């Protein structure tokens, strides 16, 4: 039994943090779109969506890029404050980083800052240029992220090998077939076909095509590996009081969160078909007071199909061992019983490094704000499960978000 932690702020409280706007640029290969250009544009999109201007922001949280150290330094040393023209008035600008789960931790950080009064309005910014970067350089860089150089790098492991090992264990433990695993990728593609910002918009995909694609790291085929992409996302959080004053009547709040850091090296995980999800979920349900049956959508990290199947089992969306078959039955599809990764996820909207999780989160907020394009907006969307994971799936992070009325 997980411990009971309560949030120190509730719905309607003046300092209850709420999401009021999101922004996103198209994901894919955009070699002519500069890094600072992308960050600036996406920041302005999110602020416009929130009905705000840069001067309304007092704190910027930066989600890192993985494509280059020079751009990272620009983020760390507050370049965006100056680009947005809020130097002088901006109180704080800093980076949050835990790999793929960064966006979940950025929300926790912003939530804490706002609740406690350290910040009123927080702008969270992310951009990545993985699609335009040198592929070999990125493979080598990724072999040093979440992989201990002295102990595991000598085996020649890398990110697809990690995904493949988790997939192999998951298939062994659950008895899932290659067809059932591939059906997860097809569900994601079905959603990407409704998302003009997705890298694979209007590029239908079948189980047969996936299984006919070349083997990259047995049992993973190339169409089951995440496509590296350029992308940018942003979101704005503020106090309920400030949102209300600005005339915002509907927003999105954090009902609770739960997390579990289960390992650093993949080799130290006791059960790769389980990971940290069951404990993270128990903590999240305890804090929010709701359960998996209460959600209208789920946005769960999907760098590999097995990662998502394992997560939905741990979260309790389906029975243990049934994650892949849950997708094969169409339950996560448009019109299915729990729409899953409605932007197309990392596997079909594009893997933007640390930003893949941010894009899933931003889509969850967008759905709860009822601002998704009509063709993929989930009707009366009130509650969303957001799930993230980083590194060698070292952690399982869950945010439970709900639509909230702010009143007059």
């Amino acid at each position, binding site marked *: 039994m997980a411990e009971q932690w309560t949030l120190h702020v509730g719905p309607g409280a003046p300092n209850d943090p709420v999401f009021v706007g999101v922004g996103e640029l198209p994901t894919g290969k955009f070699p002519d779109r500069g890094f600072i250009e992308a960050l600036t544009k996406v920041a302005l999109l999110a602020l416009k969506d929130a009905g705000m201007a840069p001067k309304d922001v007092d704190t910027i949280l930066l989600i890192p890029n993985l494509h280059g150290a020079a751009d990272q330094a620009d983020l760390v040393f507050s370049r965006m404050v100056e680009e947005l023209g809020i130097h002088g008035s901006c109180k704080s600008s800093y980076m949050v980083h835990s790999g793929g789960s960064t966006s979940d931790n950025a929300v926790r950080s912003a939530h804490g800052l706002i609740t406690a009064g350290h910040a009123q309005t927080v702008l969270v910014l992310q951009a990545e240029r993985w699609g335009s970067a040198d592929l070999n350089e990125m493979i080598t860089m990724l072999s040093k992220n979440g992989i201990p150089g002295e*102990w595991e790098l000598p085996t*020649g492991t890398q990110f697809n090998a990690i995904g493949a090992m988790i997939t192999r264990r998951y298939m062994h433990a659950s008895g899932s077939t290659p067809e059932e695993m591939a059906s997860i990728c097809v569900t994601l593609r079905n959603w990407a076909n409704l998302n003009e910002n997705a890298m694979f918009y209007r590029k239908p995909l079948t189980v047969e095509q996936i299984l006919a694609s070349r083997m990259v*790291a047995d049992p993973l085929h190339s169409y089951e590996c995440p496509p590296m992409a350029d992308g940018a996302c942003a979101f704005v959080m503020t106090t309920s009081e400030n949102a209300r004053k600005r005339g915002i009547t509907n927003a999105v709040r954090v009902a609770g969160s739960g997390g579990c850091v289960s390992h650093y090296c993949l080799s130290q995980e006791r059960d790769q078909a389980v990971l940290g999800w069951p404990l993270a979920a128990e903590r999240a349900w305890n804090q929010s007071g709701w359960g998996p049956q209460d959600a209208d959508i789920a946005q769960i990290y999907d760098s590999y199909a097995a990662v998502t199947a394992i997560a939905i089992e741990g979260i309790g969306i389906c029975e243990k061992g049934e994650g892949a078959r849950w997708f094969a039955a169409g339950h996560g599809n448009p019109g299915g019983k729990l729409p899953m990764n409605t932007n197309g996820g990392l596997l079909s909207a594009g893997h933007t490094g640390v930003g893949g999780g941010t894009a899933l989160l931003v889509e969850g907020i967008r759905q709860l704000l009822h601002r998704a394009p009509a063709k993929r907006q989930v009707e009366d969307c009130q509650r969303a499960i957001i799930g993230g994971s980083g590194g060698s799936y070292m952690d399982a992070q869950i945010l439970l978000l709900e639509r909230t009325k702010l009143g007059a």
Partner: protein
Amino acid sequence: MNTPKIVADFRAGLASGKLLIQNCSDCGKPNMWPRYACPHCQSDNLGWVESAGQGTLHTFCVLRQGAPEGFEEDLPYAIGVVKLDEGVQLLVRLEPDAPDDWSSYRCDDRVSFVAVDAEQIERRPCARFRRLAA
């Protein structure tokens, strides 16, 4: 930076044909990977024991493309996670059944440590395991 002593000692073990497990001289528990303080009792009174080299294969994969820099010529190669009978786990290279063929391997197979010469360990300082016939 010089190679830390715990890394050098572990690799020296591999080079002499031994799989070493760090063992806490105070609480007696095995640690893998080796640590700078015992994660169970925080002691720095740490030594080594030789593993019996027997274990179970939790999972594995065969990497066919996209090797990290410097590993291209090894392709294809198989890596896996072994749960040693001593209760600790590690990432290893798996020996093929035949050249470029790992088709006999399954999760939960019994596997055994394979000693290789010092030259091979110098080039790839990692443990190698092979599937035991059922």
